């Protein structure tokens, strides 16, 4: 019986091994870090803070909790909505710039447009240039992308803050650089995986390599590219909110201030507005993807 089962069982492939090693690594890490679940039991002070914080979950503040509010301060709800708007603005500006970077770098980093697909030129000089220069372009694009995306947006923000001081431009740049790298990487992969049948057809009717790349590959990959872009926009909105902790005028700025002043009701107000925004984006992007699919 067991022999029969063994004969039937599928040979274990790389996927099973990978999954198993991740699990093993997790267990090993857990013990080597000496993780203790008792650390999650709060002390008396922590318990009061937790209690105070979560007790306001169902009663977020509608007005400021501070005893003194200066004359002419925006009402809390208006400020919350305004800061969310600012958050989206930063995310949009950052992602817009990232899209530009991603498309250009993704083009140079993809295999599709130059490996073998360029029509066979017999001119030896052209061939030599292609063979020696294009790998350089390709590799430098890949390295640049790796550098851009391996440094987190918050690290870029810290760096820029130290170098240029607080300015909205640096916040946008801090978002645009890692996101541009991520978009470039994923774009080049999606484009490389797009089916090549249309490439053949467009080449056959005399299209240039750039036309073949753009219309034959990018157009085919467009639904996947757009879906990924939407996902990245969600991430950018969250990152932009967090940038507020560094002093940029996004949601995180007000969130941090309220938290430090122990105004937990206000914290929940800001959190709910953020959750509402992310859900809205999620709904929008899935509706958009559905419209592409059918």
């Amino acid at each position: 019986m067991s022999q029969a089962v063994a004969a039937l069982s599928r040979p274990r492939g790389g996927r099973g091994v990978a999954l198993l090693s991740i699990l093993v690594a997790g267990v090993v890490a857990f013990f080597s870090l000496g993780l203790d679940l008792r650390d999650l039991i709060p002390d008396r002070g922590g318990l009061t803070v937790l209690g105070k914080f979560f007790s306001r979950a169902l009663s977020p503040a509608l007005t400021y909790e501070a005893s003194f509010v200066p004359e002419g301060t925006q009402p809390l709800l208006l400020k919350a909505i305004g800061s969310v708007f600012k958050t989206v603005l930063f995310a949009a500006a950052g992602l817009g710039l990232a899209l530009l970077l991603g498309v250009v770098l993704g083009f140079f980093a993809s295999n599709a447009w130059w490996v073998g697909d360029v029509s066979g030129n017999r001119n030896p000089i052209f061939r030599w240039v292609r063979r020696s220069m294009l790998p350089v372009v390709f590799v430098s694009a890949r390295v640049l992308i790796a550098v851009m995306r391996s440094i987190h947006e918050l690290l870029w923000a810290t760096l820029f803050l130290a170098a240029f001081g607080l300015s909205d431009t640096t916040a946008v740049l801090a978002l645009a650089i890692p996101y541009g790298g991520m978009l470039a990487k994923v774009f080049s992969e999606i484009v490389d995986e797009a089916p090549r049948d249309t490439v053949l057809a467009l080449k056959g009717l005399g299209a240039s390599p750039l036309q073949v790349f753009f219309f034959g590959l990018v157009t085919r990959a467009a639904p996947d590219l757009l879906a990924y872009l939407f996902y990245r926009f969600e991430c950018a909105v969250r990152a932009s909110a967090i940038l507020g902790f560094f002093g940029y005028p996004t949601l995180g700025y007000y969130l941090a201030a309220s938290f430090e002043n122990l105004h937990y009701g206000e914290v929940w107000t800001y959190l709910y507005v953020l959750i509402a925004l992310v859900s809205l984006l999620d709904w929008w992007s899935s509706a958009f993807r559905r419209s592409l699919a059918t």
Partner: protein
Amino acid sequence: MSRECQTGARFELRDLEVDYGSTRALAGVSLRVEAGEQIALVGPSGAGKTTLLSVLNATVRPTGGTIEVNGADLTAYSVRELRRARSEIAFVHQGLNLIPNIRVLHNVLSGRMGRQSFLGSLFSMLFPGRKRVEAVHEILDRVGIPDKLYGYTHRLSGGQQQRVAIARALYQNCRAILADEPVASVDPARARDLVVLLTSIARENGLTLVMSLHNLELAQRYFPRLVGLRQGELAFDAPTSDVSSEQLQALYDLSASQVVA
């Protein structure tokens, strides 16, 4: 149909050889195709039909021999000149090879790409303008799907998509249509309709038509000249009425192919 080709292309192949690495796809093929002629390429799978059509379309360079299109030697052409030559020859593929997730209009418009710059093609895709849209509509009307102008290509049936591919070929303003098993993925009744459509369009516009076909019956019925390919070599090249059933039998005969191999 004002925007279509006026005169058919002439092809002349001499001792054509094509190698893919160590595999010989075509050996010593000589063939003359006159302007406006209609030829069916027949032969078993792997006989070199697709390779021969690709050479005629200037997408595969021969390793030996010459190919002339309208008297000009393609083997001497630069990349730019090859692109220009391709833009005058339309290719209807076995797979549909359309861009699936765009509208029919834009797939047909892509036919002109070979004569446009990158920005020019981008502009005409984004802002086709009334004249271009009307021209495309006219062609779609001709191939029998005028109501699909703004339809998404991947939502059409296989036969309708093949008509879009034919429309793209027509809009290309070509002088010849090469078709590689254009009816392989449609049912017999529609296959016949498509062959009739392609042959009559080619005749009306004076285009040269070279079509590879698995279906011998269709080839014999609608084409005045048959070219048989086998193992990369020309088995016969004659008016359809002169091709004997023994010749056709031998073309597909498995035991004979083993002898040759």
